[in-house]
C-alpha cells in the first residue's frame, strides 16, 4: 500500500480519550453507509476500529501530555474499505507483539492482549508504518 492511498481518505481528528470512541465510530459508520459497505464487513470494521482506538487512548500518550487521534476511511473502487488510525505518540508497532496463547486454559491465561489479534483476524489486510511523526495503522476489508 502506498502513501498516496490515503489521499482520498476522509478524516476526523479528536482527543485521544474514551469519549472519542463513539464519535469516531459514528464517523466511520456514516462513511461505510455512504459507500454501501455490506453490514458484515461493517461489523468487522467496527471491532477493528475500537481495538485500534482503545490502544491509542491507553498507550499512545503519557497521562500528563494527552494528544489526538486521527481516523480516516475510504473505499477504493467499492471493493476495498480501509480505515487508518493515527497518533503522534512514541513509535510503536502493534504488529510486533506476539499473539496471545489461545491454548492456555483459564487458570494460566493472562488478561488482555487480544485487541491487536482481533484486528488481524477481522481485517483482510493490515499495515503499520511510522511516518511524519505519527504511528499509522491501516486495515482494509474486502467488500467482495
Amino acid at each position, binding site marked *: 500500500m502506498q502513501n498516496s492511498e490515503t489521499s482520498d481518505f476522509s478524516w476526523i481528528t479528536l482527543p485521544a480519550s*474514551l469519549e472519542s*470512541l*463513539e464519535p469516531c465510530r459514528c464517523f466511520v459508520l456514516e462513511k461505510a453507509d455512504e459507500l454501501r459497505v455490506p453490514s458484515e464487513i461493517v*461489523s468487522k470494521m*467496527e*471491532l477493528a476500529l*475500537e*481495538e485500534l482506538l*482503545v490502544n491509542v487512548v491507553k498507550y499512545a500518550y503519557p497521562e500528563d501530555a494527552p494528544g489526538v487521534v486521527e481516523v480516516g476511511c475510504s473505499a477504493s473502487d467499492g471493493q476495498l474499505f480501509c480505515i487508518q488510525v493515527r497518533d503522534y505518540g512514541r513509535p510503536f508497532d502493534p504488529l510486533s507483539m506476539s499473539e*496471545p496463547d*489461545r*491454548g492456555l*486454559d*483459564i*487458570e494460566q*491465561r493472562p*488478561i*488482555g492482549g*487480544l*485487541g491487536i*489479534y*482481533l484486528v488481524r*483476524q477481522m481485517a483482510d489486510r493490515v499495515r503499520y508504518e511510522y511516518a511524519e511523526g505519527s504511528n499509522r495503522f491501516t486495515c482494509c476489508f474486502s467488500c467482495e
Partner: protein
Amino acid sequence: MEFVGVKEPNGFVIRLKGRLDTVAAPQFDEKCGQWLEQGERHVVLDMTGVEYISSVGLRSILILGKKIMALGGKLHISSMSKLVGGVFQISGFSGIFPVFDSVDSALAKF
C-alpha cells in the same frame, strides 16, 4: 448496557442487552461483582441481547469467570449471536467457558 439478574432453581441468569464494549465494561464488572458478592455461584451469562463485543468485553467476561471459579463456582455462556459467537471463537474463549444455545441448556448443565 442493560443488566437483569434472574434467580432460577438451577442457577443465576445474567441477562445482558446492548454492546459489551470498552465503555460498558466497567459497568459490567461492577454489576457482576455485586451479584457474586451476593453469593451467586452457578452463573449463566445470557448473551441474547448482546449485539457486539470487543476485547475489553471479553476481558471482563474472563475476569468474571476467573472470579467465579476461584469461589468454587461455574460460568456458562448462552445464546450468542453469530457475530458475537464468532469473536468468542476467534479469540479462543469458546474453549474456556462452556457455551450453550439456550439459557435452559446452560442451566441444565451445572
